[in-house]
């Protein structure tokens, strides 16, 4: 029980990663697979920020000049995750445009039917 309440952020992040991987492996509608890709992306970002947390730390911003804060959390993972979120939305937009084009060409979004039609 102590293990669960101490590492609740890790459990949440890994739950999201596994659910995202399950959707990508099992489902056969293309837009559902892209939704799973988005959930996987959110889970990984949550895991990165949860690693950089320090107990009793504050946000890494100096608001007042003379104020002395105690501990600050790690600022490097936050910079990386900021980049990663924007790249995630760019990938989702490109994947959805490819899905629209596939629907216009084949007439259905079922991955089993699309794989059957070889060239």
């Amino acid at each position, binding site marked *: 029980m102590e293990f669960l309440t*101490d*590492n609740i*952020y*890790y459990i949440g992040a*890994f739950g999201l990663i*596994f659910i995202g*991987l*399950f959707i990508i*492996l*099992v489902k056969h509608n293309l837009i559902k697979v892209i939704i799973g890709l988005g959930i996987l992306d959110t889970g990984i970002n949550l895991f990165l920020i*949860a*690693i*950089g*947390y*320090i*107990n009793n730390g504050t*946000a*890494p*911003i*100096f*608001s*007042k*000049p003379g104020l002395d804060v105690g501990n*600050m959390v*790690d*600022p*490097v993972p*936050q*910079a990386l995750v*900021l*980049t990663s*979120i*924007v*790249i995630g*939305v*760019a*990938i989702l*937009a*490109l994947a*959805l*445009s*490819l899905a*629209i*084009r596939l629907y*216009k060409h084949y007439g259905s979004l079922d991955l089993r039917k699309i794989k059957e039609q070889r060239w």
Partner: protein
Amino acid sequence: MKKIISLILLFIICLGIIFCLQKIPFGAAKTKVGNYYIDNGREETGAANIVTSVVLNYRGFDTLGEVTILFLAAMGLGTVLATLHKKDKRQIEQASLILKTGCRFLFPLILLFGAYIFFHGHLTPGGGFQGGAIIASAFLLVYLGCRGRKINETSSKLTESIGGLVFLIMGLIGLTLGGHYFLSNFIPKGEINTLFSAGIIPIIYIAIGFKVGSELTGIIDNLMEKS
């Protein structure tokens, strides 16, 4: 059958990861690079927001790579969705008067809020990417509320290109003046916690804010109008 195999595979991976997570305790201090940035970030860059100084000063090259990826994705989307024949103009039903007036009233306020966020990126939480996303939301509101109004495509592409060029030119100027490396901070850093401080960081964030805002607007415009 596929479900059972994938569930077993994921279960094995889960056990392996729980075994490895014993070595990463939650909440303990792990790295030393972050301590260096927190201790020396204020004097070396002049920005009050440490995350901004890490994104634009210490790891500025990664931000350049990310801006390139965003540009490539927007260009790829425009290429994939281009059609050969023109779409016929159907009669679009107009929204009611309350909706149109409300959208037109809210549009400059949301633009002002987005501009405030990327102007003060080095003092408060915020920055170019967040401000650009809010500006794109303002244009999305106009697309959904007052139907039939489009943005001017030429000026949107021009804004996007100029934003990217300003970033590059600032980096190349830092190569000649200042510290003789790419993206060095050559403008004198003023007093901390004022608006005109922290060297080239506010200038680059303004350029990134314009670029990301017009790029995301261009993505939504391409998705709605074409095909």
